[in-house]
C-alpha cells in the first residue's frame, strides 16, 4: 500500500501501537479512583501533561488539557469564551469546518478583515488543504498591538510537532492539536490555554482535567498520544528535512509527467502538496489509483463529498473551474522515495489513458 493522505490521518507508529495495546489491557482503572491503580494512572497522566508543556516550551505560561478531538478543542474556545451574538470574530474562510461552523453557529459578527473591536481572532498554523504556513507568533503579536483584549486562538492540527513553535513569551491565548495527525491513536487530542485566561468548559461533571474538561480520562489513549508526540518532537528536524526532499522529488516527477500541472501554493510547507491538473477530475484519478492500493486525497477529507463548488478551495483562491481537478498529496515521516517511484509507475499509466479518453 502507498499512503499519501497523512494530513487526513496517519498510520499509528509501531511503538505507539505497542504501548496502546498493553495499556488497554493493563490501565483499565479509573484515573480518578482513590485506590492505588487509579492514583498511578493519574500520576502518569500528569506526567504526560507536563511533557506536552515541555515540548512546546509552555511550562510557565500555559495549561494543557486532553480532549477527544481537535474539533472539540476548537469548539471549547469558540463556545467557551462567552461571546455575545454581535461580538466581532476574525477568521479565514479557508479554515477547518470545526472553526467555521461553530463561529457561524454563534451568528457572530464575523469578518475576514481584522479590526480593533474583534473579540476573537483565529489562525490556522498550517492550512490543511494548501499546506501554507502562517507565522502565528508574529500575527498574534500584531493582533494584540491593535487590541490587547482580543483572544488569539491557533488551530495547530497540521503544524503540531512538525514545525517548531515556542509558546512561552508568545501572545497566543490557545492552541489546538490532534493525536492522529502525528501517528498517534484517534479519539484523543489537546488544547493549550494561557494561564490566567478564563474559558467555560464545554463538558462539566467530575472535575477531571483540573476542571477544564469533565470526562473519565482515556489513560491508554493519552499515554500512546504522548509517546507519538515525543517521537515526533525528537525527530522534528530530521523528519522535516526528509519530507522536504521527498516533496521536491515528487514535484520533479510530477512536472515530468504532467508539464501543464498547476502548483498553486509555492509557499507551502513540505508535508502537504496540492496540485491541479486542468480538465482531469481528481476523483476519477483517485479511484484509478486506489485500485493499485494507492491512496491520496482529492480535497480535504471532510468536504470531499461536495461536488462542483468547494468553499475552502474558493477561499484559498482556486478558480471554480479547477475545483474538480484538485489533488492533495500529504506525506508522513514513514513515507519514502521508493513509494514515490511506485506511485508514478501507476500514475503515469492512468494519466496517459485518462488524458486520451477525456480530452
Amino acid at each position, binding site marked *: 500500500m502507498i499512503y499519501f493522505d497523512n494530513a487526513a490521518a496517519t498510520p499509528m507508529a509501531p511503538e505507539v501501537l505497542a504501548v496502546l495495546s498493553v495499556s488497554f489491557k493493563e490501565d483499565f482503572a479509573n484515573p480518578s479512583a482513590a485506590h492505588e491503580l487509579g492514583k498511578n494512572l493519574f500520576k502518569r497522566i500528569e506526567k504526560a501533561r507536563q511533557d506536552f508543556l515541555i515540548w512546546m516550551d509552555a511550562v510557565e505560561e500555559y495549561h494543557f488539557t486532553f480532549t477527544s478531538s481537535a474539533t472539540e478543542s476548537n469548539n471549547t474556545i469558540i463556545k467557551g469564551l462567552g461571546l455575545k451574538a454581535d461580538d466581532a470574530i476574525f477568521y479565514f474562510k479557508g479554515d477547518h469546518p470545526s472553526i467555521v461552523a461553530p463561529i457561524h453557529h454563534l451568528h457572530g459578527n464575523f469578518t475576514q478583515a481584522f479590526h480593533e473591536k474583534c473579540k476573537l481572532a483565529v489562525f490556522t498554523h498550517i492550512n490543511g488543504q494548501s499546506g501554507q504556513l502562517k507565522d502565528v507568533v508574529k500575527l498574534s503579536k500584531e493582533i494584540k498591538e491593535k487590541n490587547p483584549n482580543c483572544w488569539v486562538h491557533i488551530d495547530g492540527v497540521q503544524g503540531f510537532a512538525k514545525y517548531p513553535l515556542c509558546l512561552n513569551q508568545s501572545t497566543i491565548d490557545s492552541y489546538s492539536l490532534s493525536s492522529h495527525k502525528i501517528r498517534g491513536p484517534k479519539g484523543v487530542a489537546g488544547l493549550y490555554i494561557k494561564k490566567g485566561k478564563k474559558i467555560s468548559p464545554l463538558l462539566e461533571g467530575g472535575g477531571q482535567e483540573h476542571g477544564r474538561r469533565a470526562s473519565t480520562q482515556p489513560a491508554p489513549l493519552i499515554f500512546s498520544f504522548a509517546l507519538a508526540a515525543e517521537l515526533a518532537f525528537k525527530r522534528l528536524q530530521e523528519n522535516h528535512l526528509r519530507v522536504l526532499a521527498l516533496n521536491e522529488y515528487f514535484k520533479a516527477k510530477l512536472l515530468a509527467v504532467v508539464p501543464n500541472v498547476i502548483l498553486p501554493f509555492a509557499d507551502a510547507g513540505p508535508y502537504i502538496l496540492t496540485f491541479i491538473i486542468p480538465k482531469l*477530475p481528481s*476523483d*476519477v484519478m483517485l*479511484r*484509478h489509483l*486506489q*485500485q493499485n492500493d494507492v491512496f491520496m486525497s482529492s480535497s480535504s477529507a471532510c468536504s470531499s463529498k461536495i*461536488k*462542483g463548488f468547494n468553499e475552502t478551495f474558493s477561499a484559498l483562491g482556486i478558480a471554480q473551474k479547477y475545483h474538480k481537478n484538485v489533488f492533495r498529496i500529504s506525506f508522513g515521516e514513514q513515507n519514502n522515495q521508493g513509494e514515490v517511484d511506485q506511485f508514478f509507475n501507476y500514475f503515469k499509466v492512468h494519466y496517459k*489513458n485518462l488524458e*486520451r*479518453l*477525456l480530452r
Partner: protein
Amino acid sequence: MYKFLVINVDELWLKGKNRPLYFKALKDHLKKVIKLYHPEGAKLAFDRQRYILSMHSGIPAGTIDGILKIPGIHSVNPALSVPSQFSAIYPVLREELQKIVGDKKATFKVITKRVDKRFPQSSMQVNCDLGGMILNEFPNLKVDVHTPEIPIHVKILDEQIYLTTKTLLGVGGLPCGMSGHLVTMISGGFDSPVASYLMSKRGCKQTFIFFYAYPFVGDEVKDKIIELLKKLGQYQKYCRLYIVPFGELQSQVAEACHAEYRTVLFRHAMVQTANLLADTIKADAILTGDALGQVSSQTMGNIALMDGSSKRPILRPLVGYNKMEIINLAKKIKTFDISVLPHDDACSMFAPKHPIIRPDRVYWQRLVCALDLTENIQKCLRESQVYQINPVGDLSQIDNFVTNTFKK
C-alpha cells in the same frame, strides 16, 4: 384498523378465455406480498372476481400500501363484514358512522352492488332503505348523490356483505409477468425508473441492468441505483439487479471510434450487453427511459441505430413524454428524491464536444461490424454483482449464475 380488505382487480375483466391465467398470476403475487408482511399467514378468499383479505388483528396500513403497488389491482376497500341478510347491515353501519362522523356535518350516498342476485332486495331498494334509516338517526348527515363526502359502499357478495366508506386506488394494469420479461436498462437519472414503473403496470416482469463505469464514476451512483431498486422492486414480484462493471469496456469503446460517435457506441455496447443477458435469462425485450430528442443519443437517427443493433425490440414508454411529465411521475413513485442526488455520469465524462446527431450509416455499419465486443461483454456479465429485490423492497446479494453460462 379494519379486519377485511376488498381487493378489486383492474383490466383482468377485459380478458376472455385466458382470464384464469391472469387471476392465477395476480393471486400468486398477492400471496407473496402478504406473506412478506405477515409470515404467520392471513386468509385470502376469492369471491365474485374479487379477493378478500381478512385478518383478526386488523390489516395494517403498511400491508395495504404494499398491496396497492401490485400491478393488476385497481383498488382496495378497507371493509367491515356482515352476514348476508338485510337486517344485519344497519347496526354495523350505524356504529361505523358514529365512529367516522359523530356529530359533524357531512354528505353521504349509499352505493349498493348486489353481485349475488339471490339476495332478496334489489340494489336500489337497499340504497333507499339504508339511506332512510341513516337520515332518521343522523340529523347532521345529508344526501348528495353527485359528490358525497362519505360514499357508503355496500357490496353484496356470495358469502358476506362488505361495508366500506374508503376506496384506495392501486397502480392498476396487468399482473406481473403476464406481458413478458424485460431487461430494464437503469441509470441514476429520472427517466429509467419512471419507464420501469410504467412497464410494471403493463404486466412486465423485469430484470434490471446497471452499467457501472467504476473507476470513472464513484460508488455513490451504485448506492443510488440500490436505493432506486428498493422503490421499483415493490412493483415487481421478486426481481433481480445486475450491476455490470463497465469501466474497462467503456474506455475500450471510447478509443474504437471517432470521438463524436462515442456516446452512441457506448449505447450500442449497452444494448448488446442487455441482449446477451436477455439470452441467458430468456427475456423478451429491452426497456429504456429514452424520450425522443431529449439528449443527442435519443434523436430519431440514433434511436434507429440502436434498434438496428438490438436483436430484441427496445421498448421506450417515455418516448413522447416531456421532462416535466417524467419528473411528476418520478415524484409520484417517490424515485425523484433519489434521482435528484448528484452523481458523476461516465457518459458525460467521455462525452465529445459535438456528439453525432445524424449518424453516417455507412461509417456506423463498418464500425459495428469491425468491433466484436462479445468476449468483453461476457466478461462483464461474468463479473457482475447480482441482487434480488423482494416486493417489500429489501435487497440481498445472490450468486451470479451467469458466471457458469459464460465460463471461459
